[in-house]
């Protein structure tokens, strides 16, 4: 596990509050839509909150700035968390979140370029690390100092394409590339360890030439430290292996496979929002 740096208490608390708010938006959005993927959205909420409200260099008013840091959501089904942080950052009005998955909505069931702040679509698993690699190579070629972040699911890295990208990213020495693995240990059919084991996961990434950083993916200080540490690594790409809990923050969704791809009912929504209330 990572050796944490000290961050001001207020910064940590602000991000925790923000994450809780993002979780509430995810629950409401999915309940309204009636379908979608809460489990992996909630497990990656703290990671995405720290990224969009701390680590990522971006400007919602200038979403296509060539100097911006890039983010690509490789596990596209978890777009509710992306949409929530984008809306909260100011890329589009919060009200748009209630149109998720509706015909003609800018918020498609999987990421699409019609959404402000989304520059590349995703959804078919295993391709996102390659897309991020392309962004990283372009940055190197153009002598830009932007960084590229790519969030992947754990089940997703069973795809062969991921390992082709892993091999190439270290070959091309893409130290401007930082992958984030949401290691919640569940996939649709059950436990990742049972379906198709990924261990020893650190060794696997290290052997492909990556710099792995293992953290508790719900500990804000861990996450901030990991992003900071990754920035210091030269000549090789980094991967933040974030141990997370699927459905994190809603007791009856935590580690329940059923909530991989099922939206909460009205009652479940109320119950979840009660649990996600701000504590004073």
């Amino acid at each position: 596990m990572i050796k944490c740096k000290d961050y001001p208490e207020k910064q940590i608390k602000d991000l925790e509050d923000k994450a809780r708010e993002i979780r509430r938006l995810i629950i409401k959005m999915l309940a309204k839509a009636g379908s979608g993927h809460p489990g992996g959205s909630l497990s990656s909420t703290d990671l995405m909150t720290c990224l969009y409200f701390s680590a990522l260099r971006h400007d919602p008013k200038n979403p296509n700035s060539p100097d911006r840091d890039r983010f690509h959501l490789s596990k596209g089904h978890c777009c509710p968390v992306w949409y929530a942080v984008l809306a909260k950052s100011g890329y589009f009005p919060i009200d748009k979140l209630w149109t998720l998955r509706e015909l003609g909505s800018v918020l498609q069931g999987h990421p699409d370029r019609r959404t402000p702040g989304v520059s590349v679509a995703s959804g078919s698993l295993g391709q996102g690390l390659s897309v991020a690699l392309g962004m990283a190579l372009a940055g190197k070629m153009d002598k830009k100092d932007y960084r590229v972040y790519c969030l992947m699911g754990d089940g997703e890295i069973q795809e062969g394409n991921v390992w082709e990208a892993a091999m190439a990213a270290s070959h091309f020495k893409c130290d401007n590339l930082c992958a984030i693995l949401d290691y919640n240990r569940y996939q649709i059919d059950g436990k990742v360890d049972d379906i198709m084991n990924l261990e020893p996961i650190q060794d696997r990434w290290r052997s492909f030439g990556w710099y792995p950083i293992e953290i508790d993916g719900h500990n804000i200080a861990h996450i901030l430290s990991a992003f900071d540490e990754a920035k210091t690594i030269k000549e090789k790409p980094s991967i933040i292996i974030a141990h997370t809990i699927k459905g994190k923050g809603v007791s009856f969704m935590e580690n329940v496979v059923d909530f991989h791809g099922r939206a909460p009912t009205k009652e479940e929504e109320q119950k979840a929002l009660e649990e996600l209330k701000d504590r004073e």
Partner: protein
Amino acid sequence: MSEMFYTRDAYGEALVELGKQDPNIVVLDADLSSSTRTKLFAKAFPGRFFNFGVAEQNMLATSAGLASCGKTVFVSTFAMFATGRAWDQIRNSVCYNNFNVKIVASHAGITVGEDGASHQAIEDIAIMRSIPNIKIVVPCDAPETRDTIFTAAKTPGPFYIRLGRTKFETIENKKKFKLGEGYVLEDGKDVTIIACGIMVKYAVDAAKILKNENISARVINIHTIKPLDAEIIIKAAKETKGMVVCEEHSVAGGLASAADDIILENSPTKLLRVGIKNRYGQSGRPEELIKEYKLTTQDIVETARRVLQK
């Protein structure tokens, strides 16, 4: 006989010229840069060339990331691996985003020759045609290849450009290349022969033989399969008594299918196909395979006669 050139030489040379003109051109290959001729670009612009090794899926998805940052990306390997191995990446990462990725694949069709069936892409046009946003061009010779490459570089969006392994004889009396516009190489009123790629030469030769039999054949080069020039096909369907469509590709899903769709909906006429009929390729010399799979000038002549039979 006209001169013979490799279309992939024309491609490699065009790339180098484009590279000089446009610093945003980036070229990717998957361990076949000698065969596809992207090595010419690699030598001239090493900082803008990336060899991905034998990993086509990664190469195609990476091209999408590069294009998202404003690059015009040319991606090359053999037709079999570009389209078959990486179809999902082409559909979801390249074409769905409508990115500036130009897939230029060599070694298409059975004229790959001795390497045999595993390397002979005969369904690549079919599987590319089914994807929205992509434009598909099958040039008939080296000069047309050059024009296609320059056009693709300045036309936004994804392209699939299909090249062969063997030398192509340069076609005489070609019209200026315009994307999406076929043209008449030989006018005629009895039967229409539509062709693309290497088959254009055979179609022209077939028209000459038919002329000796007092059959007047109209030969149309359809270099752009998508978007297809419906107008020239419908006109031919109305003005001649039937159609032969020739392609070094499966008869399912390629140029013949595309032409048939247009005709069925607009001006039904008899359409027969010269192409590969539900078979894999095999080893052999290219000219032997052309005979074995009934793609010769003589096969076109006989098919044209059959079209005209009552």
